[in-house]
């Protein structure tokens, strides 16, 4: 199922936020590839930079944030485009059409003053898929039906506040898939939802992926979701990727101490463990990150080199990358 054709190549992506307290180095030299048709997961704790990474792909970084360096190559039909080199209007045409997003909180993703039919239709209209908003609303009924919204004919004229959280997330997924995107970026799509609804939404994303053959970039902190959905996984810590491998390798043979800690801290769906352990310490400040390996203050195997030299992401076996001196 995993193709060998790259659809996205991210190289040295670096984003800084210039705040009054200092420069927050949100992500530093993040590089990874995404293959066509796979589900690629970015995992890590809150504040590790996974959302920033996802948003930076289409320049969705707001002031005071800035993409400092890096390239994002997007391959389409033999053509290669660096998404970060595009102008404001050019990149806009990719967003929502070729690369669509689903955000964490459906509650605040939708504009409260417009009907959901309008908002789905708008996604079609701005990419010239329909001639008018009115025409789009008719299409919106079909789209809402595909995301399993009950009674879509009536629902199109509802406003966001009239829907439950799960239904709102269906709407945002509907908006995401409206233009049949090639890449769907789901940023913590289930975090804000009830546990019972979470599984439904994940299934829906899977189904949409299969139906439209899209590539999914999944951002989550939930290892259970990763095991359920992902083909390959990149683990992020303090703005850097520390380990990248296919999902089985990550769960069975994690190498980086942080990945191992992370897996010990959550119930591991693939390996039986006796008890859950927390990783000691807290996430470091990104204004003055620790020198060397950013994980060294919390790592029980840290040596002198870990404090002085930044480890590079290296391929230790086929398709398994680790950034660790150990």
């Amino acid at each position, binding site marked *: 199922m995993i193709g060998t054709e790259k659809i996205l190549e991210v190289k040295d992506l670096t984003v800084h936020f210039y705040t*009054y*307290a200092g420069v927050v180095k949100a992500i530093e030299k993040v590089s990874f590839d995404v293959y066509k048709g796979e589900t690629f997961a970015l995992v890590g704790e809150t504040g590790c930079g996974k959302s920033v990474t996802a948003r930076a792909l289409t320049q969705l970084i707001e002031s005071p944030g800035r993409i400092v360096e890096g390239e994002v190559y997007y391959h389409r039909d033999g053509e290669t485009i660096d998404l970060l080199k595009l102008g404001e209007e050019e990149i806009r045409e990719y967003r929502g059409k070729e690369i669509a997003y689903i955000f964490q909180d459906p509650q605040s993703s939708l504009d409260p003053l417009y009907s959901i039919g309008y908002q789905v239709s708008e996604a079609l209209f701005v990419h010239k898929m329909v001639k008018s908003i009115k025409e789009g609303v008719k299409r919106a009924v079909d789209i809402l039906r595909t995301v399993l919204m009950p009674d879509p004919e009536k629902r199109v004229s509802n406003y966001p506040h009239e829907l439950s959280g799960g239904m709102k997330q269906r709407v945002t997924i509907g908006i995401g898939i409206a233009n049949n995107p090639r890449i769907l970026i789901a940023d913590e799509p289930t975090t804000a939802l009830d546990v019972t609804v979470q599984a439904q939404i994940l299934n829906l994303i899977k189904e949409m992926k299969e139906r439209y053959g899209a590539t999914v970039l999944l951002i989550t902190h939930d290892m259970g979701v990763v095991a359920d959905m992902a083909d390959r996984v990149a683990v992020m810590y303090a703005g850097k990727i520390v380990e990248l491998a296919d999902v089985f390798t990550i769960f069975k043979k994690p190498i980086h101490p942080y990945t191992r800690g992370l897996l010990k801290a959550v119930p591991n769906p693939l390996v039986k463990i006796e008890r859950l352990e927390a990783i000691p310490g807290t996430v470091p*400040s990104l204004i*003055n990150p*620790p*020198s060397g390996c950013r994980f060294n203050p919390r790592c029980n195997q840290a040596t002198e080199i870990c404090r002085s030299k930044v480890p590079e992401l290296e391929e230790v076996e086929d398709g398994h990358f680790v950034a660790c001196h150990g």
Partner: protein
Amino acid sequence: MQEVEQLGEEYQRSILDRISDSFIEFLVSIISAVRKGWREKNRSRIAEWKLMFYALNRSPPGVIGLFLVTIFVFLGIFGPYFAPYKYNYFPIFDNGDTYLSPPGQFFLLGADHFGRDLVSLLLQGARTSLVISVIVILMGVPLGILLGLVAGYFGGKIDELIMRVTDMFLAFPPLILAIAFAAVLPERISYLINNYIYLQQILLWLFALDAREAGNLSRLLAVMIAMAIVWWPGYARITRGSTLTERESLYVESAKAIGLSSAKIMAKHILPNIIGPILVYVTLDFGSVVLTEAGLSFLGLGATPPIADWGRIVYDGSQFFPKAWWLIIFPGAIVLFDVLGWNLLGDSLRDVLDPKLRRSIEFKVKRKKPKEERR
């Protein structure tokens, strides 16, 4: 709690900070003189106050506002004693040329149609303005807070009743309502002033007036009552709003659970938690009280000559406009600066108390520690 104190150590204190520190120390020593052990119990609160001032001292508008407010409060208290001439001394009887004499001729800022020195009138007027504003706030705000607290805490029918009455008052343009009450009240309350000699004495003392002005006090009192009538509903509204949120909080639940009386819960638990923002609002609001008072007296309500009042000076001076421009420009500018001071201070205080903005100000305050230390 300890952390706050330590944070305090990190700050680099400027001269302003030292002044505000000694001001707080002064306040604290007064309180601890009355209540033994208060200082020890409230260490963190004192540190918090100092911090608040540090942040305020870093915001130029706040400093300007504080400066203006301090001046006007000072003038309001001591102004009448600095005044070169008494407000009820009429030079025109000694020297006819003082009639509307322009600035510089006899007096620095000119004279009014009684030949009175404008500087003296403005100084005396500072007292009138301050006293009226403070009394309006002292009458209106506690009433509003009390009603809002009761409405929000008990809810149901009581809430409904209080808020309906509040809405009734809010259905009027504020100044119009104040004008109406200030117009009809004086005759009704004049008997109060005539019958209660202590009230009369207190008012005369507050306004720094001679006993022969007693007959005019009812009009001043009427303006204060009229403005208080207009002012309380706003406070009832905001207090009720914040009480509603506090009422649901766990600490109120637990206070109820251990059987504290409603009055005690309101006074000891809810009020201290909502009073901060309300006080900031009072600071912001003080300017509009001053402005409204000036407006009312400009319309001929409230103070009557020879009582000096900024708005009234303009009202009387307007008959000689544009010739006697100084009778309008100077009192108006004084009102502007007074109100501006309160608004600047209130604005900055709100910023200081807003956690988000507060942090950004505190970062400016904090001494930058060498970064290597953390590594």
